[in-house]
């Protein structure tokens, strides 16, 4: 550990490289988090509307309500009466007020709006569920944006894919960097190691400092990167300023979760250890 201080310039440089590389991993994890969050928020707003026949009987309606409510995966159900439907339409399309005024009767059907649980909504089983209810007598039509469902599925898959793809590449790169940094350190202290061997030091005595060094570098690097990420996330919106008021939902960036932070630190500590070991096994044969 003595040596961490002795070669402080080189090790600071190393820690910075490692932190930078972890920062990138962190940025993508955070991006993935944000996408996932956005996706889940959008999914929460997604509903399936079952439109009712105008001439539906009370018994039929009750059966439909029951069926919708009993469906697994339905979070909760809203009944939208014909009047409410009309009011909503008026609100959405104020420029069509004239048309509506000219109408004799309310053309909108009543409907049950089922808010589906996220995991169900994004899955294929939602389709079967909807088909089943659509078959009930009294259900005139079903409306839901299947495209949106698909987009959300894809987006979520995309986020996960980006996470794994880039995360994988960058974690490999970090491992490569740590292992090389330790190798450089071992290399720089070749003479010292050689002399330690000459005076009868045991393998453990020689290896321990390097293992500790790898560990420390890994932990330091990841801690530094977490701090940098935090600063980045906090400063970024400030830097962009007020002009982004309308983009609030995009830039309400979220930090990594606690378990992700701990995972990153432990992972990088392990990486440091393994990196040291891999360097040591090559250089410290005898």
């Amino acid at each position, binding site marked *: 550990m003595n040596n961490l201080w002795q070669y402080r310039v080189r090790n600071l440089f190393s820690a910075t490289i490692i932190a930078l590389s972890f920062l990138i991993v962190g940025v993508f994890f955070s991006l993935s988090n944000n996408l996932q969050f956005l996706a889940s928020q959008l999914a929460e707003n997604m509903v399936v509307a079952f439109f009712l026949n105008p001439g539906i009987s009370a018994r039929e309606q009750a059966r439909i309500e029951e069926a919708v409510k009993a469906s697994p995966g339905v979070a909760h159900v809203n009944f939208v009466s014909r009047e409410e439907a009309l009011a909503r339409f008026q609100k959405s399309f104020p420029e069509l007020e004239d048309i509506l005024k000219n109408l004799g009767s309310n053309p909108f059907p009543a409907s049950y709006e089922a808010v589906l649980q996220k995991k169900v909504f994004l899955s294929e089983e939602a389709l079967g569920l909807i088909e089943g209810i659509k078959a009930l007598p009294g259900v005139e039509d079903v409306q839901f944006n299947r495209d949106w469902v698909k987009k959300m599925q894809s987006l979520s898959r995309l986020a996960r894919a980006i996470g794994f793809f880039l995360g994988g590449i960058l974690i490999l790169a970090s491992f490569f960097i740590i292992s090389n940094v330790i190798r450089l350190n071992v290399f720089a202290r070749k*003479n010292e190691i050689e002399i330690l061997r000459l*005076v009868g030091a045991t393998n453990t005595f020689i290896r321990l400092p390097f293992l500790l060094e790898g560990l420390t570098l890994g932990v330091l690097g990841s801690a530094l990167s977490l701090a940098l990420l935090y600063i980045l996330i906090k400063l970024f919106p400030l830097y962009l300023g007020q002009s982004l008021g309308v983009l609030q939902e995009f830039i309400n960036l979220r930090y990594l979760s606690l378990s992700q932070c701990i995972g990153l630190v432990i992972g990088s500590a392990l990486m440091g250890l393994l990196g040291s070991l891999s360097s040591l096994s090559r250089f410290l044969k*005898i």
Partner: protein
Amino acid sequence: MPASSRSSGLGATFENIVMIELYHISKQYQEGQWALLDINLHIKKGEFWFITGPSGSGKTTLLKIIFREILPTRGQIVIDGINILRLPDHKIWKLRRSMGIVFQDFRLLFHKKVFDNVAIGLYVLGIPVKEIRRRVFNALRLVNLHQKMWEYPSHLSYGEQQRVAIARAVVNEPQILLADEPTGNLDPELAFEIISVFKEINRQGKTVLICSHDKELIRHFGDKILFLFKGKIIGKEVQPFSRK
């Protein structure tokens, strides 16, 4: 590791016990060139040997093989009853702790002070700091360098660096002391003094092997002299009643 363990099996008190046995040792660094060829040698505990011969005759190679820094191409070496070629890598440290060596190129650590350079072998043994300080000071006083204890080796003259290497080799009080041209960069007076130090260590029962070109030194101190030429022993001179 307790300090006492380093002398296990090596610190026998019998006189006339054989310390270093070389059987048919040959070393070939490159195809067709024998740096050493069929060396047979028995060195008893407490003996004082000079190894001499022209440049490139294999002196350094012989010391390195005894120190197990390199392995011979053929032959066997037994040190204090242990065949060191059969010693697994992770046990070499036991052998090393019983030996001290002065390399021809010193092998000092230039980013560590003279004190630490000498103390490194004591750190490894886990000796208390106070004791380390005492022993390092004494070793440096032996080679007349105690006033440069807190210098860096790069601030020393070449001969001073050589004396640091000597101090490092003797600080452990090893059973076997190997020295490769330990006075090559010293003036004759100092060279004389240093070899006297080796002689003094030898008088305490340690086995000493010194490579040297210096005819005058050898003439004066040489109990036992080994002449090497092109990797072969071309002569031995053994005084039956050495001056010790």
